[in-house]
């Protein structure tokens, strides 16, 4: 255990609850950009928002898949191991959460756990870092939690991301949920959301 271990949350119980609520609201209101309102002492390789999601939602029962750059980062390993106890898995289909940093390649969504019809919750939540997030422009979002239609954009994402999200949505109630982070801001596109150009 290194001397550089980051503290994570100062007050784990209250802050985890706050982040849980914020992530729940982001998933309930797809494409709305939220700001993390709790301080988090995180490793540099993870966005504060991504680190907060890990601290609040990961535990020893949620295998985590890490992008190769994160997986090779000893500080990230130590941070997740110490604060969450989550086992790191190389098998995407077994992961409850997956983390991709800025510049990392987003793997095919259907490589990850898709859930089953009986247990659609047994699927992966992908947490992907981007450079820019904005609501009110870009993709057209419709579906549960979106009043009428919403607009949302995030950059950079793979060129075929729209197609991937559409195929993911077609699997509903199976499929993955996507959380996009940008520093201490974040937004979510759950599988229930229809995304169009």
């Amino acid at each position, binding site marked *: *255990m*290194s001397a550089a271990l980051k503290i994570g949350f100062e007050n784990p119980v209250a802050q985890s609850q706050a982040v849980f609520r914020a992530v729940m609201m982001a998933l309930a209101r797809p494409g709305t950009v939220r700001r993390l309102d709790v301080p988090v002492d995180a490793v540099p390789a993870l966005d504060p928002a991504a680190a907060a999601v890990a601290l609040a939602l990961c535990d020893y029962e949620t295998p985590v898949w890490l992008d190769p750059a994160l997986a090779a980062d000893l500080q990230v390993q130590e941070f997740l191991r110490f604060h969450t106890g989550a086992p790191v*898995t190389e098998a995407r289909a077994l992961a409850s959460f997956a983390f991709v940093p800025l510049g990392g390649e987003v793997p095919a969504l259907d490589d990850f756990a898709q859930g089953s019809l009986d247990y659609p919750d047994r699927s992966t939540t992908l947490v992907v870092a981007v450079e820019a997030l904005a609501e009110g422009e870009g993709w057209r979002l419709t579906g549960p939690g979106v009043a009428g239609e919403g607009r949302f954009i995030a950059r950079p994402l793979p060129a075929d991301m729209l197609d991937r999200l559409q195929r993911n949505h077609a699997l509903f109630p199976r499929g993955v949920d996507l959380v996009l982070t940008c520093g201490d801001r974040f937004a979510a596109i759950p599988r229930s959301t229809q995304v169009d150009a």
Partner: protein
Amino acid sequence: MTHASPSPGRADAEPVVVARRRAVMALTSRATEAELAAALDRVGRPAFDDIRAPQTGLVMLRGRTGGDGAPFNLGEATVTRSAVRLASGEVGIAYALGRDAAKVRLAAVLDALAQQDAPGLDEALAPVATRLAGQQDLAEARSAATRVDFFTLVRGED
């Protein structure tokens, strides 16, 4: 559940250090708060910060089918854990059955000292080891006195 391949470059992964930390923790997890406070006084109490305030949770205890077969979940136990960082940088972690937060915090400090191979640590914990060994020996000796020596009364032949 899949575990990662052995994590490279773990600072605490040297077998000697791990063995020492495990030996210390086997004592601290069974010690009282007063015993650990006394041990720290003997070895010199270092400055430290909490990096994880003592937290009580559960560990699911497992048995084995038939005593040596496939595992099953027997039931949970309360467990308290704590992590501290010494001013010198070592991160000490402790776990113990029960809900004694103050005790486990001291155990985490002792775990950090075990990583330094702090001089006098074994001696400081010797009273705990002596008490535990004495209690176990006494309990086993009392049970041994209830061991049955059979003698045959009558062996019927007809």
